[in-house]
């Protein structure tokens, strides 16, 4: 009896996830999806999203890995505060994040004088898109990487040291390979979150075709503009991307 209840509960949630996605994917004939994707607006959004999310991921991996390592290894006062700070962007609503970025990095923001002197304009640029994506998605990677590093047997790192590998080489030959599944999983989550980012993007980077109109913005705007086929086609693409990446990563993990 209990087993049946558990199974039903599980099935309900699974169905709730699959049915809307399937409904969306099956809404248009493949032919219509393809032709909608060939519009310049669709292609621009696709390219922009791919470009920005890859750059955002690269930045997150570069800066987030050391941070995750420090949080996992170094014991310092206020470490739990830093942990909490890292988690903040997950909890803060994206629009709030966008507003915060705007008020600090915007034209009349806190850093405006410095940026002006350097001749840099951040709001309404593709750079702003990347900044918004990094802000909202990096915690997903840092959390996963930190957990991955914590799970590594420190004795192995000590062994590596006694055998002659310095800290950097130990990190490369022992720590990273052993943490790889966690790092990979975190990177995927991070990328997916960046891909879906909307609120912070439109607030800080604005909405301009080719500059800041990423896939989610394009979906939303095409929905309004009455171009449902394009909105649906782009949504299908996003679902396909996400599904593909998730599957590839799971396959990798199984290795």
């Amino acid at each position, binding site marked *: 009896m209990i087993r049946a209840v558990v199974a039903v509960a599980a099935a309900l949630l699974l169905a709730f996830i699959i049915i809307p996605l399937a409904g969306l994917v099956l809404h248009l004939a493949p032919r219509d999806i393809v032709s909608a994707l060939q519009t310049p607006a669709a292609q621009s959004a696709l390219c922009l999203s791919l470009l920005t999310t890859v750059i955002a991921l690269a930045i997150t991996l570069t800066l987030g890995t050391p941070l995750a390592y420090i949080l996992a290894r170094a014991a310092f006062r206020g470490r739990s505060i830093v942990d909490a700070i890292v988690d903040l962007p997950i909890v803060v609503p994206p629009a709030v994040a966008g507003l915060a970025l705007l008020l600090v990095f915007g034209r009349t923001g806190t850093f405006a004088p410095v940026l002006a002197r350097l001749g840099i304009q951040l709001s309404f640029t593709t750079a702003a898109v990347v900044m918004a994506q990094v802000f909202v998605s990096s915690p997903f990677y840092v959390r996963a990487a930190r957990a991955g590093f914590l799970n590594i047997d420190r*004795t192995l790192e000590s062994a590596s040291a*006694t055998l002659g590998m310095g800290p950097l080489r130990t990190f490369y030959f022992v720590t990273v*390979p052993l943490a790889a599944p966690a790092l990979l999983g975190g990177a995927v989550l991070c990328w997916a979150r960046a891909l879906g980012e909307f609120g912070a993007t439109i607030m800080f980077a604005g909405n301009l075709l080719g500059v800041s109109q990423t896939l989610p913005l394009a979906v939303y705007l095409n929905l309004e503009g009455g171009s449902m086929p394009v909105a649906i086609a782009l949504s299908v693409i996003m679902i396909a991307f996400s599904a593909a990446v998730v599957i590839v990563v799971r396959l990798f993990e199984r290795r």
Partner: protein
Amino acid sequence: MLHIDVGLQMRDFTFAASTEVPSGVTVVVGPSGAGKSTLLRIIAGLLRPDSGSIVLDGRVLSDHRTFVPPYQRDIGLVFQEYALFPHLSVGRNVAYGLRARNVPARERGARVQAALDRLEVGSLANEHVGELSGGQRQRVALARALVIEPKALLLDEPLSALDPQTRGRVRSELASILSDIHIPTLLVTHDEADRAAFPQRVLLIEHGRLISGAQHG
């Protein structure tokens, strides 16, 4: 010759060790928690002492002015649970220290095979570490520590991870392998039976203090 004369304030006791370890095997016996692993970690450079010095073959590894990091000490350490890298094959495990020293691939391969053969596990080069028995793991760990031709060898409770049946056999094999090595070798253990297998030099350690024990002929 390995000169040790160090002190370290720990949470439960004050650790103090002062002795000279000549070539050959020196056994350090003591109960659990006496500071045996601490001694090895200090010598290996994984722990920094508060005071004193460690000198190996005339080279200062640690004193009030210098501290040579573990990856530059050239000291082999066989860990209690062997610490074999689970993501590397046996061969790659053993080759690890040679890689650290930038030994070219071909020479690496030859030396690894030789080290494994010497310990009679030559056929295991491509095996997965997880598939090995306790005794095999111990030999691989030993091969890994020895292949780099260290200036000193430390063994942390090398037999305690083995089941009682295997222990006796491996003990005598280990004694025979170590008798062939002519570098200062420290073997720490809580098992009195190990004393008998390595009679040359025995030290006692208790509550963090290293005490010279009786020397047998």
